[in-house]
């Protein structure tokens, strides 16, 4: 399977340095591939060799020039400023050890004195900015600074996940603020693992060392778009630390069926007012949210009006309801929430001949 399209190779290259070879191994592990010097810095061969070995600094130098054009100076001027900053002699070769030591000290002093430069909002010292630009001007960009594409591999075994489907126009497993969330039973997943759906990263949290929850929080427009279009949308798990990803499955959005359209029409029937809120929308297998004396789980629906004979339908089983002050309550028997899965809830009135879809109660694995 190919990696979802959004991910592309990110190449930090510039000038005459092609640097296109991708290195094997870890994502961030710098291999000391050294570049031949394009230009001498004027600091001597030792210092030039050290400069050339500063992988990543060339890329940074390029960033700095883009963001701070005043750093785009001739090599000789940059070298002079660096000598001054490092308190090195005005000319002559600089031994590598001395260069390295003075560089470290100057960077430390810059941090202590807040002599800094913001580059892409990174807080860098003025000394390292000079070095980075000099590195870029003299040796360009290292091949090792090219970011690799993530590789597909199994990161963790996912025992179960859900919800897996919805009908177009219905938010699956939607919470109070109107955001859907998907859950993944993934024992020992890296705590930084992230879920993507249709190449879009979701807000992913890790609960109780077992369940990943991926929410559409903050992505209302994307959520609306995704769940309104019938289709299959790939879900992938990503571990950016190991630069890897795995396919989890496909989320299916089906066409709204004719009877569901009727339900929608029924929802506009004066028999039922609009559902303002309801809950609980999720629980853990075997756990009754709002437990009742008989072990059943209480659910509530905030609705201003409903026929007197309204019953709660749970996966097509019907239960009696109570109504008080605009809130309908009912109980779901314990045998219905012992296993992970989903319960489809709706209100049904025989006298009015209508059914009002409420939503899906998600039962997460315990």
């Amino acid at each position: 399977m190919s990696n979802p399209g959004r991910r592309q190779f990110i190449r930090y290259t510039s000038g005459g340095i092609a640097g296109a070879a991708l290195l094997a191994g870890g994502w961030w592990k710098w291999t000391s591939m050294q570049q031949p010097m394009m230009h001498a810095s004027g600091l001597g061969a030792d210092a030039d060799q050290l400069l050339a070995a500063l992988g990543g600094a060339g890329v940074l130098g390029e960033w700095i020039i883009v963001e701070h054009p005043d750093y785009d100076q001739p090599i000789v001027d940059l070298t002079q400023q660096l000598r001054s900053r490092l308190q090195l002699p005005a000319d002559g070769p600089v031994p590598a050890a001395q260069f390295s030591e003075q560089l470290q000290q100057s960077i430390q002093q810059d941090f202590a004195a807040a002599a800094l430069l913001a580059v892409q909002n990174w807080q860098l010292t003025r000394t390292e900015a000079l070095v980075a630009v000099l590195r870029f001007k003299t040796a360009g960009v290292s091949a090792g600074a090219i970011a690799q594409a993530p590789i597909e591999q199994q990161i963790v075994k996912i025992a179960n996940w859900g919800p897996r489907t919805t009908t177009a126009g219905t938010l699956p497993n939607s919470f109070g603020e109107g955001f859907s969330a998907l859950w993944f039973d993934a024992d020992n997943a890296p705590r930084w693992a992230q879920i993507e759906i249709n190449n879009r990263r979701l807000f992913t949290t890790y609960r109780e060392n077992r369940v990943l929850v991926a929410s559409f929080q903050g992505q209302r427009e994307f959520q609306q778009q995704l769940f309104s279009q019938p289709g299959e949308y790939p879900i992938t798990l990503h571990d950016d630390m190991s630069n890897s990803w795995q396919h989890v499955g496909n989320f299916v959005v089906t066409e709204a069926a004719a009877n569901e359209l009727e339900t929608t029409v029924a929802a506009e029937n004066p028999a039922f007012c609009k559902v303002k809120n309801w809950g609980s929308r999720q629980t853990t297998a075997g756990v009754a949210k709002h437990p009742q004396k008989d072990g059943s789980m209480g659910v509530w629906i905030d609705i201003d009006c409903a026929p007197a004979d309204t019953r709660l339908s749970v996966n097509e089983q019907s239960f009696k309801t109570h109504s008080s002050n605009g809130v309908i309550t009912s109980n779901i028997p314990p045998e219905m929430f012992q296993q992970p899965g989903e319960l489809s809830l709706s209100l049904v009135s025989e006298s009015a001949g209508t059914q009002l879809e409420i939503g899906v109660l998600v039962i997460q694995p315990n």
Partner: protein
Amino acid sequence: MFTNLADGPHSANRQCDLLILGAGPAGITVALETAAKAPDLNIIVAEAGGLEPSSAAELDLYAGDSEGSSPYSLSTTRLRYFGGTSGHWGGWCRPLDAIDFIARQQAGLAGWPINKPELMSHYRAAHQWLDIPDDNYDPKRLEPGLQEKLIDFSGNEWFQNRLFHFSPPTRFGTKYRSAIEQSDSIECLLNAAAVSYEHTDTRLNKVTVGGLHGQQITIQANRVVIAMGGMESARHLLLMQQQGWQAAGLNSPKLARGFADHFGLRPGILQLQADRIYQRTESSTGPVMPIITPTPEALTSEAWQNACMMLQITPAANRLPPGYTNHQALGFLGGDTWSYTVQMVLQPRSNENSRLELSTQTDALGLPRIKLFWEIDPRDYQSAQSIFTRFTHEIGRLGLGRGQLKPLDTKLRRRSASGTAHHMGTARMAEHAADGVVDRNLKVFGTDNLYVAGSAVFPSFGYSNPTMTIVALAHRLAAHLTATGTH
């Protein structure tokens, strides 16, 4: 024992030595501690809810308007049943720091009329109440394997490591229910919300309690403790003020002003040595959360508010170029680096514009609803930025990595600010009524027998979750009530 007012009918009038309004962590602690110290006292605890979570209709009694710059939920951040908000708290515990008690005008922070040493014995007791076996918050007590995962701030003038501990979390409504049930001197009235008050110049004489069930009784008490939480306590004090009670504390300019909550900030990202642990983790003595805080010296010299930072391992799309952070010549200590999102909890300034008011609308019990104007002091964001900026400098200076600042957009952050259900500061403790509502013993200024317990009395807030300090203050209040007699 428990009496459910909804089961009525009951005797219309009752008397007691001590009436506690509210059975959350503060109310339950005051009741049981007072009963233990003075078994002859007749104590009534009036809880607005029952033993189970409220119905929607009951929760509607908490509804009101949120009209501040930052939206705030009035109902979901509170629980109206026996045990109060301990029914949904996360168990984070840490006493306030000593500096949190000290007034620091330059930082715009009020002090407490008591200092931390005065509260230490009560903090120790609070650990027992909250089932926390370990009261050592110094990370040096962690086993070496965990210490190695912390940044070494030895001798650092700016930052230091500290710890949070965790209560299981103790659900007061579950754990202390049998103690109340079996107590000979405590009667807990359920579904008994305070609905009206009778007072003289200096004394609250009678409180009538009732509920949606329609039953009411009036209780005459020698002393009354309001322990309803940071919003509801202020609401009822405002109600007394509205009824014309002239007591100084009820007419303090600070009453219901300075409402504060700890709000989360994410000031930036670090690219830092791999495998640093500043998240909840297991230690040999239970779960802990290592945190990074400014040193007291830095707080003083920079006029910063107190703050703590946690690091969440979160791969960031935006990283420094590969290999850059490996070079010793650039001062880096070497090794892999990970990305961490910094989560900061900042001590909020007490903002006078952040306030509660009584609405002209009433609830089903006839009480005025509340309007909340939650206003975060804009300077709080600058403080957070300043602390984090200095932190990135230290991370760089120590060769551990680099930091990236998130752009500061105060308006956007205010709109998206999210509270943590820590309702604080609406009935501040102070030396004088000009500066607060209650005195150092939590008695409302100008009254002889009215007290407030809970985080409403905090004059400043630190960054620590409030429950431990709430329980410590309740423990201290019980000692005061028993030491000063029954009248």
